[in-house]
């Protein structure tokens, strides 16, 4: 109840929208025989601060608010949105949207009665306002401290860029049964990029993190200074890197962010929309072996305070821990309401949208592999010749062919069971449906990423998390230049 009132105060009250207005808009939507309808209200406040060249160079503040109106009939969706949260505008949107239902006449006008008795769901983050969690001067002081402490770490540092981002978002979903569901979503992110120079050679390193919290996240336990230290370490490693090898070889992936492997190779291919349409390389394969029996992969929106976590998804469904692969066997897909209904399964709380101006679709939350039995050092020792990839940039997948890439930003050669030379960044490429069948060792050291992931799908970006223990893959193509 408390959360619903917060969302009402933030979105509906300033716009003068009453429950009766929502009933009118929903009534308009339901005057055609639709299967589902919803109105998504959103108000987001965003700020960013950037320190560069030793000065506070930029600051910005933005407000994004509006409402999206949707009606679904079978596989058809009608959608309209507006930045203006006004009754007349939303009624007109509802008229446009319900035109998706063409056959038959208007149904008897259904009465929608707004009900505010809230279903039970668990909060996975507090209702904080990150933007107000520090005074502006304190935010500046934090940036300055990270900048100056980082610059002290090494004489080869040429430039330090520190950025701080905070989002305070309220959402409220009105569903066709009259229920109103709301969420307050804080999100913070900090990043430190360092450029170093040695004998004319320049390299960079970057580290960041955050989560669904406020700015105290960066101050507690000195997290922010840790980003600086890590960025410097990576940049210095890159100064020593030699050309990366090219070809198919044994690859050991580090724990944490390298879990982007799972996001690209497995995750997207297991989103409900692609599988309902039969366009994924994993379509129709539930119950089949898609990984070695060492692999259990889950998508979990319920991890407290994580960047990819949500208490409820953008359709108002509570998130959950969804087992995707259990001991190598494909168990199920990630679903939103539309695709779950069409496939005859339950929604999994994966219906997400970038904003009110976008349609929801099945998206990942935090995707990770459960830990295994092997000591990470033992995994390295088992490799005669191969690559140890410790950190990554982004990735991409073609869900139909199953081919995926992810780019190592910090990697080393493994020679005779030992990590030897650092090598330059390189893209790794593989085939999603069989890469996990080549996993021969899984470490005990499950770690989640530091809170930096943003996933893009059909032009929509949402924050996500990934994680994994150290993994050994017997054969992956490494795209270096050293042939």
């Amino acid at each position, binding site marked *: 109840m408390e959360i619903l009132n917060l969302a009402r105060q933030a979105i509906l009250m300033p716009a003068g929208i009453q429950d009766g207005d929502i009933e009118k808009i929903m009534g308009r939507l339901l005057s055609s025989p639709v299967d589902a309808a919803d109105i998504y209200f959103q108000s987001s406040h965003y700020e960013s601060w950037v320190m560069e060249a030793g000065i506070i160079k930029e600051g910005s503040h933005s407000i994004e608010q509006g409402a999206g109106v949707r009606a679904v009939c079978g596989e058809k969706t009608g959608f309209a949105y507006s930045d203006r949260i006004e009754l007349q505008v939303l009624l007109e949107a509802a008229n446009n949207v319900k035109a998706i239902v063409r056959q038959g006449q208007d149904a008897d006008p259904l009465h929608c009665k707004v009900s505010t008795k809230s279903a039970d769901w668990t909060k996975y983050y507090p209702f904080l306002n990150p933007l107000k969690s520090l005074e502006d001067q304190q935010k500046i002081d934090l940036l300055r401290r990270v900048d100056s402490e980082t610059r002290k770490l090494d004489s080869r540092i040429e430039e330090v860029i520190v950025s701080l981002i905070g989002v305070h978002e309220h959402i409220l979903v009105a569903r066709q049964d009259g229920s109103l569901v709301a969420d307050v979503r804080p999100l913070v992110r900090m990043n430190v990029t360092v450029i170093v120079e040695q004998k004319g050679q320049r390299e960079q390193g970057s580290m960041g993190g955050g989560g669904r919290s406020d700015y105290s996240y960066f101050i507690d336990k000195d997290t922010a200074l840790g980003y600086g230290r890590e960025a410097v370490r990576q940049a210095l490693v890159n100064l020593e890197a030699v050309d990366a090898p090219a070809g198919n070889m044994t690859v050991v992936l580090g724990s944490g962010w390298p879990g982007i492997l799972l996001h690209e190779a497995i995750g997207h291919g297991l989103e409900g929309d692609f599988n309902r349409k039969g366009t994924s390389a994993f379509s129709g394969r539930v119950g089949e072996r898609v990984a070695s029996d060492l692999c259990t992969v889950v998508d979990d929106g319920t991890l407290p305070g994580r960047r990819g976590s949500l208490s409820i998804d953008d359709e108002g469904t509570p998130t959950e821990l969804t087992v995707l692969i259990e001991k190598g066997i494909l168990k199920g897909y990630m679903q939103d309401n539309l695709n779950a209904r069409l496939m005859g399964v339950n929604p999994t709380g994966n219906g997400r949208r970038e904003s009110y101006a976008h349609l929801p679709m099945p998206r990942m939350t935090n995707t990770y592999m459960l830990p295994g039995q092997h000591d990470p050092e033992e995994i390295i020792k088992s490799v005669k010749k191969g690559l140890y990839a410790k950190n990554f*940039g982004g990735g991409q997948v073609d869900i139909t062919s199953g081919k995926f890439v992810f780019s190592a930003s910090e990697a080393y050669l493994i020679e005779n069971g030992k990590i030897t030379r650092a090598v330059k960044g390189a893209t790794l490429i593989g085939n999603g449906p069989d890469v996990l069948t080549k996993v021969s060792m899984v470490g005990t050291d499950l770690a989640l990423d530091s809170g930096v992931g943003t996933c893009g799908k059909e032009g929509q970006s949402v924050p996500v998390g990934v994680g994994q223990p150290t993994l050994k893959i017997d054969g992956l193509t490494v795209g270096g230049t050293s042939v």
Partner: protein
Amino acid sequence: MQNQEHINQLKNTVQGILDEAVKQGSSAAEAGLSQENGLSVSVRLGDVETIEHHCDQGLGVTVYFGKRKGSASTTDLSVASIKETVSAACSIARYTSEDEFSGLPEPELLATEFPDLDLNHPWDVGVDGAIALAIECEDAARSYHEEISNSEGASVDTHQGIRVMGNSLGFLQGYASTRHSLSCSVLAQRGDSMQRDYWYTVVRDALKLDPAVEVGNKAAERALRRLQGRSLSTRQCPVLYCAETASGLLSSFIGAISGGNLYRKSSFLLDALDTQVFPEFVRIHEQPYLKGALGSGAYDGEGVATKTRDIVSDGILRSYVLSSYSARKLGLHSTGNAGGVHNLTIDPGKLDFQGMLKELNTGLLITELMGQGVNILTGDYSRGAAGFWVENGEIQYPVEEITIAGNLKDMLKNIVTVGNDVDYRGNIRTGSILVDRMSIAGE
């Protein structure tokens, strides 16, 4: 004219924002306002899938208190919200530092001539018309061949927008523009091999859209030709970037000569001005005043006049790509590129695509690239790729699950020739590009 009235209205709003900024104590200000309406219709397997009505608006304002700067934006254009947004920007400027390089552009660089660039062609296609066109396109793709097994659908998008920008130096301009597209994506299957590909057409004037059947056929043909691709053994060989992928090479080059990367000294082309970056035959230029083109504009994101100019001639880098801020940091003048380049064009050579294949002779034709894999600081380049193995100028078989790698500095120098098979669908206009030698990693 209705548009002109609308533009004038928005100009008044922008002037009001600038006045408000001055009222709140700022010494200079810049504001931009945009409104856009659109319709997107997608069909799949012969029936409507989604109908989306778009309606977007946004305001951005930057204020200066001397050399200190603050920015704010909002989607709410009510009087109260505008006032709050200006005040948010002013409040931020209290905390940012003095930056001697910040500020509005030099007044003499601001655009003063505003020719009609033929960018606005509203298309009253209607929901039914859009559905019919999308279905025609998808039908063509699905009936192209029996191995076309599934579809991600076809869609029609049409957008009309108005953008107005002004600053406290007295610059206040606006224009209306449109953008329409038709796209199609289908799957082909043969045995266990399943592949998907797409094609699209995008224009300012809907009369110039490629025919729906042609777009559908092309999507189908592209999906089919990828079936039963295989990897290659690890090797070095020449690489032909098809026109669609070649634009990525040029965009990496532009990234490396962009002010932001230069003043941060994070470009592999640092201090490369007036040096040989490409082979002698290469000319790369900007054409901001092309009528009806996707990248045309008489002024940049700060109101600075854009210029028809050479960036590279005789293979030598003649100019950087700069905004006012990055120019001042480098001790230069803005090149009218706040927000990017305008119809960047590499002069095409004499060979068509078939001729380029002959020129490649034996090597790899790249038709798709995956992942980021480009380090602008070092020039290190490593990306996932798919395409075709070519021998004696003839395509042999599709290739997938490989990477191509090299260093951009060498790759740009090792361009052998540029085709005349130019892709006009974007802001970068290039034909296919043949690069002498790259590392291929595969099975």
